[in-house]
């Protein structure tokens, strides 16, 4: 892997990696990625016909920057509609990003031509949520897994392709006897294995796993998680593991990023974020996860959030979480908190905490230590 190109790009104005752990080079660098969906509206004509006259834009992903390092699993959690799946798809340009950059091997994926992009797809693969919808029902397993092999000409002729498919099937724990079977003849877990084999067929470096286990039975979830970890070790894969299941994310991830309404609100080591969440939303999210232990459940204190997740159409100004945050103050409505390093390698977006006062429960009422950080003020000025 030559990363010379990447370094030049860094020099050419890319912000430094968010987490330069051990001086490693990131495999993927996402910078200020935006995916907006324009729903239209707000024209004079609409007002004439009694419409609300508001131009509606879904800011599914709104300025996300993060680095993903080789060999790690970055967990991405958030509630439905927070934009986590859109982020995963925009990374692979299955959804066209509205703005921002995605650097991979020194190239900005967002600027590749269609043809170049198709060549790059070899290194970037995806595992889908729904093991029923993600496999073409009219193709045999061999055709499904063989398709990427054929597309990137990774094997010579039919026999070559077939032996590669057999190998892949064994790798994911499927008997090659089932080569000629169709997806509907398999169970959910088996289908997910087929989906994983297809993702591996092109021998990728990076795999986006979009809710790979949420459609599966509990006992099968463990199988798939273990399989993914096993493959990661064996093939030195890098994962972006997207899920709403915090327990699963905590289990498979090295680092976890929490997303809320299109923005990253906290990024930290998986163990740390679970033990010691900083941002109020993460706190609530983690305290909401039921623990399979009645002793713990009886003792634990829960932050039960009021209200629903606001619509991503024209989301609330300032900190997007202020409408539900038990610690919100007046300033939260105005200031968009940037993702700041509160503790070492622990980033959080909240103006009510700062590196000096990281514990929001101990911050004086009404105080916003984060605002004393010059970075925050700059944001405030920018937005007003």
């Amino acid at each position, binding site marked *: 892997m030559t990363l010379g190109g990447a370094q030049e790009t860094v020099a050419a104005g890319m912000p430094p990696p968010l987490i330069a752990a051990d001086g490693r080079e990131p495999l993927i660098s996402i910078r200020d990625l935006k995916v907006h969906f324009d729903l239209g509206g707000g024209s004079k004509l609409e007002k004439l016909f009694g419409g609300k006259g508001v131009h509606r834009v879904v800011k599914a992903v709104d300025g996300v920057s993060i680095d993903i390092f080789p060999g790690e699993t970055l967990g991405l959690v958030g509630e439905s509609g927070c934009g986590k799946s859109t982020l995963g*798809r925009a990374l*692979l340009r*299955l959804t066209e990003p509205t703005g921002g950059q995605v650097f991979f091997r020194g190239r900005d994926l967002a600027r590749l031509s269609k043809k170049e992009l*198709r*060549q790059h*797809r*070899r290194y970037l*693969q*995806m595992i*889908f*949520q*729904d093991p029923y*919808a*993600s*496999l*073409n*029902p*009219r*193709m*045999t*397993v061999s055709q499904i897994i063989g*398709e*990427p092999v054929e*597309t*990137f000409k990774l094997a010579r002729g039919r026999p070559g392709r077939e032996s590669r498919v057999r*190998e892949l099937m*064994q*790798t*994911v*724990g*499927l*008997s*090659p*006897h*089932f*080569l*000629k*079977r*169709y997806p*509907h*003849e398999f*169970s959910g*877990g*088996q289908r997910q*294995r087929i*989906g994983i084999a*297809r993702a591996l*067929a*092109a021998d990728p470096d990076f795999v986006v796993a979009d809710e790979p286990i949420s459609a599966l039975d509990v006992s*099968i979830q463990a*199988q798939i998680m*273990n*399989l993914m*970890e*096993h*493959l990661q*070790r*064996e093939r030195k894969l890098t994962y972006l593991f997207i899920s709403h299941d915090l327990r699963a994310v905590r289990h498979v991830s090295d680092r976890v990023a929490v997303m809320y309404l299109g923005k990253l609100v906290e990024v930290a080591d998986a163990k740390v974020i679970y033990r010691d969440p900083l941002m109020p939303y993460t706190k609530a999210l983690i305290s909401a996860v039921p623990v399979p232990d009645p002793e713990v459940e009886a003792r634990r204190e829960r932050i039960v959030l009021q209200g629903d997740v606001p619509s991503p159409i024209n989301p609330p100004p300032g900190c997007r979480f202020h409408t539900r945050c038990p610690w919100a103050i007046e300033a939260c409505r105005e200031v968009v908190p940037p993702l700041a390093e509160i503790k070492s390698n622990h980033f959080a977006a909240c103006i009510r905490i700062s590196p000096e006062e990281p514990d929001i429960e101990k911050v004086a009422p009404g105080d916003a230590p984060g605002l004393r950080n010059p970075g925050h003020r700059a944001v405030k000025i920018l937005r007003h």
Partner: protein
Amino acid sequence: MSEERTPQVPTEQVPNEEGRPTRAVADSDPALTPRGTPPAPPVRPRAGDEIHAFPETAVGEGDVRVPEGAQVVAGTSLWKDAWKRLLKNRLAVFGMIVVAIIAFASVLGPGIIKRATGFEYDTIPADSNLVRSFPPLTAPDGSFSWTHPMGTDSAGRDILARVLQGGRISLAVGLISTLVSLIIGITWGATAGYLGGKVDDLLMRIVDVLYAIPYMMIVIVLLAFFGGQSPLYQIFLLFAALGAVSWLTMARIVRGQVISLKNQEFVLAARATGVSTPKIIFRHLVPNALGPVIVYATLTIPSVMLSEAFLSFLGLGVQAPYSSWGSLSSEGIQNIAIFPWQLIFPGVTMALTLFSLNFLGDGLRDALDPQMRKF
């Protein structure tokens, strides 16, 4: 599944073959150690975990159900599955058989009748005493005879020969018009659905406009304007006219299919693996859109045939000497009080065919509809 029904299968072997590890066989199981890769070392061992009886390689554990011997087991495709389901549907099978019989009879029948009795569909007997309508299975002298199983019409022509000849035309009208509607409908609908946006808007608005015009009127106008030159020409005009109006629904169906498939995860998956656009269309979209199209085409045939009969009945369709079931019925109804067989035979044949085709279409829909799949 057969394994689970057979009680005495040596259980040690089954998990072994399907790669389900047991303590004893895990190391030697080929499914667990992919070629060229050493078995993975145990990771993050857990202290005091007595239940962790399976080796770590259990990740390669096949959740495969049944290995039936060592050969590759060919699966049943959805097409095969649908075919099996169709064969279980008695009405559909009945429909299929009836349609097949009538089609064969229409194709081969007139030739056989000519050999046997010398009558063609337009043979008018030379003897003027015979130029009148005889009842079925009756000779001119009133005795029993096989010569005219369905009797003759007012011009002394053999009704069976005419019904079979009419069947040729009626079936041909149904098939050819449906084919025309398939070609136009699929092209139109797939283009609109796949390209989307403005193209979609334009194409579908055109369809909407055409929908708004009463189609029978178009056909009648077409036939009235251009028809009447020669009987054969009239028939071709009929094909074209009926085909040209019956593609509208087909276009809508295809468009809907393509749009819903376009957003399916497996199409996304194909894009994610860098598959080119033509391959996505022909490998992923088309085969999956085919089911409803087949069903609709099967149901279009009888509806077109009915339209043809209607037009012929009005005297706008097939002209003498050619016959179709519609024109035969039209002639028959004029004499219904005296010579009922002139109406009954073509009428019943047509009704039987239409019923059968509809049964077949319904059966196909049930067979091809994925919603009907068990569980």
